[in-house]
């Protein structure tokens, strides 16, 4: 059952080959058997999962089911789940039982989907390796000595190990696409505002975007159908008419103009990853696409720009953790300032503290123009690069990450080197455009991800291109040896 596509699972449920309860039990058993090896779940919700599966089976029997009714999924532990611990990977929220559901969680529930549990993640989504989690690092199922990427590393590893067929993630600078690449799965970051941020714990509000993760573009399109949509409760939600993201999957790629930015194939790219990309590019040519060299002249500034904008927004967003209304509180505070400082000092990890402090510095009196305003101006230049590029090409292609998965511990104490693993993904968040990472091969048994970036609201086109590639290749069907 764990090797089936969502369409196959859905068909089997509707034809009563097996029930959602049986399907859910199957995945819960796999989680029980394998989770200790990769640590991809923070919370496993077996009881509520079986209750939802039972309800889904009734819905199917009554003929009131949709394509995702009875299908299991895992939510990144950044999405609030009513009555269930929502930790965001932090000691700060280790005791936080969310009093309400995120819109994404509500929408998945409404479709009759079955939540298996909450996945591990970098603390407050700040990290690219899943090592900053209070609950310990997640391990990459392809090689448990290596990281799964981050911050949605728990979701990516869960899918790669086939402990759930689908998962949600969030992407602020690459947190869906980079772990998808390192774990050999498919992950989509939608256009900013397409998926509601309500109940998704805030990191950098002008960059944060939720999205679907799964094995294939087709699976991910089905989940996006459910996740996307206008939400009154999110002040930056896009009022965009609902689309069926599966409707263009089978379109031909003949005449598709693919842009290859020379900056994504520059110094820093592992030559072996480059070779995998070259082979993949030929596949697209054979499918009828044409290749065009393009330039994104400001893309080298995306990492420095991001490391002002994201910390500035995070320093503001995380000021809510004050030890007063919810979350961690220190013992015996001597006064209010001591309560704030020690609660935050004791409960935030090193990376979160670094980012809050950088943001605090950049926003402090006298520095605002030199840092935050300057970063917002360069953000405009980076975004304009894409506007120019999309006048010439339909889609931009490159490696999701310049390397394959790195060893656990290798970059943990070197923030800059860690930040550079997102060098190809960050620009899309700054511009707000959609991007997808799909598996394109292996280097030394470690997966390589290929990234496609599209213009605003071109999710259907990206999914179509990814699906056509997946019709011609089987990288997305590979399973790590210890998780067959």
């Amino acid at each position: 059952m764990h090797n089936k596509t969502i369409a196959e699972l859905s068909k089997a449920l509707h034809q009563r080959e097996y029930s959602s309860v049986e399907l859910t039990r199957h995945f819960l058993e796999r989680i029980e058997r394998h989770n200790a090896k990769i640590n991809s779940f923070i919370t496993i919700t077996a009881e509520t999962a079986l209750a939802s599966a039972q309800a889904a089976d009734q819905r199917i029997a009554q003929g009131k089911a949709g394509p995702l009714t009875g299908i299991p999924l895992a939510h990144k532990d950044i999405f609030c789940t009513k009555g269930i611990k929502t930790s965001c990977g932090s000691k700060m929220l280790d005791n936080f039982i969310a009093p309400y559901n995120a819109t994404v969680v509500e929408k998945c529930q409404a479709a009759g989907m079955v939540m298996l549990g909450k996945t591990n993640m970098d603390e407050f989504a700040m990290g690219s390796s899943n090592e900053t989690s209070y609950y310990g690092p997640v391990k990459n199922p392809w090689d448990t000595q290596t990281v799964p990427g981050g911050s949605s590393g728990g979701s990516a590893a869960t899918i790669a190990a086939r402990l759930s067929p689908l998962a949600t993630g969030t992407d602020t600078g690459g947190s869906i696409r980079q772990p998808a690449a390192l774990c050999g799965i498919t992950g989509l970051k939608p256009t900013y505002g397409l998926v509601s941020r309500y109940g998704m714990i805030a990191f950098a509000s002008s960059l944060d975007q939720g999205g679907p993760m799964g094995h294939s573009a087709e699976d991910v399109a089905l989940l996006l159908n459910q996740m996307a949509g206008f939400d009154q409760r999110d002040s930056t939600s896009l009022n965009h008419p609902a689309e069926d993201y599966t409707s263009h999957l089978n379109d031909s790629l003949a005449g598709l103009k693919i842009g290859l930015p020379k900056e994504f194939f520059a110094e820093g790219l592992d030559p072996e990853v480059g070779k995998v990309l070259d082979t993949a590019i030929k596949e697209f040519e054979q499918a009828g696409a044409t290749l065009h060299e393009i330039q994104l002249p400001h893309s080298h500034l995306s990492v420095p720009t991001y490391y002002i904008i994201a910390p500035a927004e995070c320093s503001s967003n995380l000021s809510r953790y004050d030890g007063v209304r919810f979350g961690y509180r220190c013992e015996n505070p001597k006064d209010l300032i001591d309560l704030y400082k020690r609660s935050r000092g004791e409960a935030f990890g090193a990376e979160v503290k670094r980012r809050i402090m950088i943001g605090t510095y950049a926003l402090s009196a006298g520095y605002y123009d030199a840092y935050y305003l300057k970063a917002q101006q360069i953000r405009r230049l980076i975004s304009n690069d894409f506007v120019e590029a999309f006048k010439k090409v339909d889609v931009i292609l490159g490696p999701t990450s310049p390397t394959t998965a790195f060893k656990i511990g290798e970059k943990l104490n070197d923030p800059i080197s860690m930040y550079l693993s997102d060098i190809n993904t960050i620009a899309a968040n700054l511009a707000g455009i959609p991007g997808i990472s799909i598996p394109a091969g292996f280097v030394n048994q470690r997966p390589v991800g290929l990234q496609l970036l599209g213009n605003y609201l071109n999710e259907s086109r990206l999914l179509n291109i990814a699906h056509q590639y997946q019709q011609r290749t089987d990288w997305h069907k590979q399973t790590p040896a210890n998780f067959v």
Partner: protein
Amino acid sequence: MSLPKEEVEKIAHLARISLNEQDIPLYTHNLSDILTLVEQMNSVDTKGITPMAHPLDATARLRADIVSESNQRELFQSIAPQTEGGLYLVPKVIE
């Protein structure tokens, strides 16, 4: 760019984060590295460029001034560290 130790202590205070004395040298080093990375922004002239605050340049949406949320004080206070009589408790602020 290299931040002095006192500057890091000041930033930590502004951010309301207590740091262990022995960790301060590492934070000083890391924050200096990050600010050095960020200095690359100065390689571009941005005179006259309109800052981009939001990817889609959206403006705040208005809604009708009607009550849409119900009072859930008990539920929200059930997850608070310390409450009494419907109030959040903190150390004494005014003597």
